[in-house]
């Protein structure tokens, strides 16, 4: 099996890293250009899904184990809500990013937006990869321990 699809395997290896880099660009450049956490999360997940399709589920799960993916699903929501709670602890309203730089509110807004977009991106990446694992894992069954 490993001797088939030579072109696909070479192109995938070249593309996977580029796709991840592009996802990071969309993630952290969302303030200035189209895109943000939702799109970046999907693009990030696509890199791993492409790898999984070409090299098989076992290979991609060695790179990105299911337990880590499942943690990411919850971690993103925690980052988002945590940003809001942190603003509350600083004496501001929930999700009022002005709290992060009282002397210069628009700087605080920048930091807050980066933080919540990161949360969105992490959750979307996790959910997309988790759903792909769940579907791809059904055909040749994976062991229950992986869950």
């Amino acid at each position: 099996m490993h001797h088939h699809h030579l072109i696909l395997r070479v192109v995938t290896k070249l593309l996977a890293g580029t796709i991840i880099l592009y996802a990071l660009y969309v993630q952290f450049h969302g303030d200035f250009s189209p895109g943000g956490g939702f799109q970046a999360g999907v693009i990030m997940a696509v890199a791993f899904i492409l790898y999984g399709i070409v090299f098989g589920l076992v290979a991609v799960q060695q790179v990105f184990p299911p337990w880590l993916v499942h943690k990411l699903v919850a971690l993103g929501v925690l980052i988002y809500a945590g940003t809001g709670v942190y603003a509350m602890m600083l004496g501001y309203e929930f999700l009022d990013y002005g709290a992060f730089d009282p002397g210069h509110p628009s700087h605080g807004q920048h930091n807050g937006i980066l933080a919540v977009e990161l949360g969105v991106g992490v959750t979307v990446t996790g959910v997309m990869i988790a759903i792909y694992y769940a579907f791809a894992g059904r055909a040749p069954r994976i062991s229950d321990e992986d869950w």
Partner: protein
Amino acid sequence: MTETIINFILFAMLISTAFAIVRMTSLFAVIMLASVFSLLTALLFVTLDAVDVAFTEAAVGAGISTVLMLGTMALTARHAKPQTQSNAIPFLVVCVTGAALIYGTMDMPNFGDPNAPAQVHVAPEYLERSIEEIDVPNVVTAILASYRGYDTLGETAVVFAAGIGVLLLLSGLARRRKEDEEEGDI
């Protein structure tokens, strides 16, 4: 004028893709055409200058959905079952729904109307204040993450809940099937 022509061409392609999807029985071709449908929709969003929405449509609709549908197809059948019942009732339902939708658009403001409710309510305020208050060049991001931060938190929670739901459903089934097989072995 050019934009109108582009819109007409895109809508014509959209409609012909939809007809092709309805007529085909090969599920692989249907999934690929659904992906094409999403890409055409993304192009329509681009002509409306809604690049963020177009980006999402291209990534989610044309990208991830296609992969997930292919994954589902791999678990089920490759071809649609031949139709046994008559088309009359579904066709009637579609016609009535379509007529109701078209009737609903009568009350909507004209395309690009500057006095449409969506343009005069909070949008001008956001556009005016965002550079001063948030200082982010992409207004969409400013609205999405800051002015509408609560909504986006809700959206993230929805994505989270959807992911957990799919995981629970699929992993539960896998376990049950395994138990059944073990019983069968004995």
